[in-house]
């Protein structure tokens, strides 16, 4: 009874104190909002904005977050300059962003120098967290995790004996392929071959002919959805049929449009699949998104939403512990343990990487169907 009273008193005092010092905290967001990679940036921004609405309706008490978005056109130079500006002029307390690996790699050098915490929703390159940069964390798994889970799933769940790797020749594809190759060797999955292609390629027939003559059990692609779509389409045109793994492309409408009927039966590992998360947070998010936009959220929208919430949650805990600053936000982001996000429970590890469920899916009747949720 006494304790409860003290509790009420403390809450009152706390709410009084916080309302007296209600603040708008500027937070930066960057990602490609224009150009060919615009989907990654603008969809994660849309997710972040929905989260922001909820957060500013009292999640942080009377404190609010003011989001400052910037377009990095997926170019490292533009990303660095945009983030520098947020820090120098807008005096942001944190930066949410990095939707492509190249843009993120340039930006983390800026946030590290300025000691501003950065949380990326989508960047997967494993090199980003290798340096143990204390100011960078992400809620996307590293490319190593993606690749290793995929290799294990192919071997154990699908009984694959051999694979052929196709790799987009940039710092999205290469780290994924390297990690996959290593894991495959470890678990005894035979690699029939590996071909890296230029990101501008449109014509994969010569490549696919080589792949077909090697007769692998599975073709594994680490690339973007446009290439995935064209490969599936051209395989069908050449009447080559192999089980095809396309990574996160499977969740993108344009992949299915480009590939056409040949998209049917392809596999992919997604950042997030609406409906695969059975928790309250997971269900509530899909329902809210449906009410607002009359469709289910995409994987990037889900990731943007959760990135914003992981940050807000860290800020909330920082405030409870004494105050919000760049340093305390950083500490609390790294303290994130089993946060109940829309895309599943999220834990941030000490190197800045995330632990989170990954949905492996298959395209069945033109719809993305959950195969297994890899923990």
């Amino acid at each position, binding site marked *: 009874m006494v304790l409860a009273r003290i509790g009420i008193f403390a809450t009152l005092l706390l709410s009084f104190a916080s309302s007296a010092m209600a603040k708008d905290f500027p937070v930066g967001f960057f990602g490609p909002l*224009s150009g060919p990679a615009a989907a990654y940036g603008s969809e994660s921004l849309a997710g972040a904005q929905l989260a922001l609405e909820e957060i500013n309706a009292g999640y942080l008490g009377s404190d609010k977050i003011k989001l400052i978005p910037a377009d990095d056109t997926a170019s*490292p130079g533009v990303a*660095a300059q945009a983030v*520098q500006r947020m820090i*120098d002029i807008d005096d942001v307390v944190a930066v949410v962003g990095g939707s492509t690996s190249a843009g993120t*790699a*340039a930006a983390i050098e800026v946030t590290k120098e300025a000691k501003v915490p950065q949380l990326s929703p989508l960047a997967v390159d494993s090199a980003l967290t290798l*340096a143990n940069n204390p100011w960078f964390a992400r809620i996307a798994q590293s490319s190593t995790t993606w690749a290793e889970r995929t290799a294990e799933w192919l071997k154990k769940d699908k009984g694959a004996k051999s694979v052929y790797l196709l790799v987009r020749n940039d710092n999205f594809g*290469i780290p994924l392929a390297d990690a996959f190759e290593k894991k495959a060797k470890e678990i005894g999955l035979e690699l029939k071959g590996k071909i890296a292609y230029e990101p501008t390629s449109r014509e994969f027939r010569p490549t696919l002919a080589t792949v077909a003559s090697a007769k692998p059990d599975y073709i594994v692609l680490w690339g973007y959805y446009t290439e995935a779509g064209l490969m599936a389409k051209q395989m069908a045109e050449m009447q080559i049929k192999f089980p095809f793994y396309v990574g996160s492309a499977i969740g993108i409408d344009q992949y299915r449009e480009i590939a056409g009927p040949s998209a049917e039966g392809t596999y992919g590992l997604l950042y997030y699949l609406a409906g695969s998360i059975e928790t309250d947070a997971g269900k509530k998010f899909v329902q809210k998104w449906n009410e607002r936009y009359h469709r289910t959220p995409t994987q990037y929208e889900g990731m943007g939403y959760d990135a914003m919430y992981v940050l807000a949650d860290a800020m909330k805990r920082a405030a409870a512990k004494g105050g919000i600053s760049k340093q305390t936000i950083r500490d609390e982001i790294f303290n994130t343990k089993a946060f109940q996000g829309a895309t599943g429970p999220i834990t941030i590890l000490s190197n800045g990487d995330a632990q989170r469920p990954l949905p492996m899916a298959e395209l069945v009747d033109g719809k993305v169907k959950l195969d297994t949720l890899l923990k």
Partner: protein
Amino acid sequence: MLRTAKESLSQQNDFASATSQNRNDWIVFAVIVSILWSVPLSLGGFYLYLGLAVAIYAISALGLQTMVGLAGQLSLGHAAFMGIGAYTSVLLQKTLGLPFLVTLAAAGLTAAAAGLLMAQLIRLSGVYFKIATFGFGIVVHQILSNWTALTGGSAGVRGIPVISIIGFQVETRTGLFVCEALTLTLIYGLLVRLSHGKIGRAFRAIGQNEAAARSVGIPVPRYRMIVITLGCAIAGIAGAYLPHLMRFLSPESFTWYESLTCLIMITVGGLGSLPGAIIGAAVLIVAPEYLRDFAQYKMLAFGVLLVASMILLPKGIAGAGAALSRRKRIHAR
């Protein structure tokens, strides 16, 4: 008889206008350089950061202007030479621990060597050479992204070493800016000087009309070779600073779009004008910062700017300024 008199008269006029042009160029030089040194340093903060970016691209644009604007040798792969300079400098610093002044020189030399290689293609006449420079840019970008053992490939280079000059560590933005501004001032000054001399006149003659230049005895191929090598060397020097600004180096900073941006800089500033190259670089880097809400229109605006400046202001911003001041002077008389 009459004809020679006329000719000597026009030569005298040429000489008089050349000396006044000479003086004007140095006045403009003084104005630009003093703005360059005073504005970013006094504003500080993010403006200093923008100043760093402007200085790098201004150096690069000066090289391109000399090639394209002065001597009429269009290069569609300019960013590639910045890339060659950037990678040369950083890799020498990282692997051999060489001091920055040495690696800066090496960046210029390597880019010059690559430029000399590209200049061999001038055997391909006119139009053919232009598209070959584009091809050259693509090839260089692919080598930077694929020669992983040397360049680190598309993952880029991290851990850019701090610039150290004669034992002095350049750790602050101000320090870096001083280095860049010194380099820019020096190169700008040298180019102004050069443009008034025999070489500069030869460049301009080639730029205006190659056949006519040949007919008055200018060894055109040699001068073309010289100007291409020079322009590329300057791009290499500019490139050497880029990783220190971004603290990260990736082949994606040296794509065809970057080459195109450099071309827009010199065109908007005024084709053929050295100060125009610097103004163009400043406009293209600073303006988007103030139009952040219209980010998706940026490239469209650049394109419109390019077309409009070609149609309406063939001599660019610098040209318009010069015309205005000329008109004022006539009125004053």
